[in-house]
């Protein structure tokens, strides 16, 4: 298999992904993809009495994030978050 010199596979970002998601996430600021509200992840609305964890925008109630933990897998849906600002 021939690979372009410029295009790498996902293993190339293992280090940076590990760094990004190791930070304190409750102070990370999320932007709601629905209404644009910006709030720290510690200030969102969270519903845990459900088949998964549902995180909603406290301004417009739209779903920001769902987290489903299976037996040996976790599904993380971030489609309701337009952007995350992480502090290093």
């Amino acid at each position: 298999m021939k690979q372009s010199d410029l295009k790498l596979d996902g293993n190339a970002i293992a280090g940076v992904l590990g760094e990004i998601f190791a930070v304190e996430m409750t102070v990370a600021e999320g932007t709601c993809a629905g209404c644009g509200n910006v709030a720290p992840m510690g200030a969102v609305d969270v519903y845990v009495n459900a088949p998964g964890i549902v995180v909603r925008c406290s301004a417009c109630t739209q779903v920001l994030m769902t987290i489903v933990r299976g037996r040996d897998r976790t599904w993380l849906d971030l489609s309701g978050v337009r952007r995350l600002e992480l502090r290093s």
Partner: protein
Amino acid sequence: MAFISRGFKGRRSSAADSSRLPPGQYLATGFPVLSAGPTPHTPLEKWSFTITGEVDQDRTWTWAEFQALPAEDITADIHCVTKWSKLGTRWTGVPVSALLEGVESAADYVTAFSDGGYTTNLPLEDLVDGKAWVAFRYDGQPLDPEHGGPARLLVPHLYLWKSAKWVRGLRLTLDDRPGFWESNGYNMYGDPWREQRYWGD
């Protein structure tokens, strides 16, 4: 369906109870409230129920029209994917087949949609022939909003996330489209007896 018992008569022996418990489930005390968002409080005068999607024409009922449809009393065991089960729950609801009467459609699947934006997908054949209802009473009382009132889907032979709370209609579709939980790891079908909790189960 062995687990839908009409004429349920009080408590069964614990041996009978355990044979009615699908794998991995435990018997709940009380009726746990599960919620993925704020509880909607749609006033009855603004409530309606709609059959839409791949149909010859949409059907819509107001609350008063819906209440005039023939309803049935149902006694059923219910099974939540979070592992609690509750046996012999008593409901009143309109059979989904009554709502689909006269509807012309080539659809094989349904997406139930609810106030608050929740959706769940089911095969159409799992909603007919006395297998599913739009329930509006629980234990002889109007269905409490925290349990999905004014009306929720009741499909007791599948995990309870398929029994959409605050249901407002059914969208008939030609193919099986994942709903809210089914998009995020939960099983497209959700048979508790085959323990179909997640993708690939």
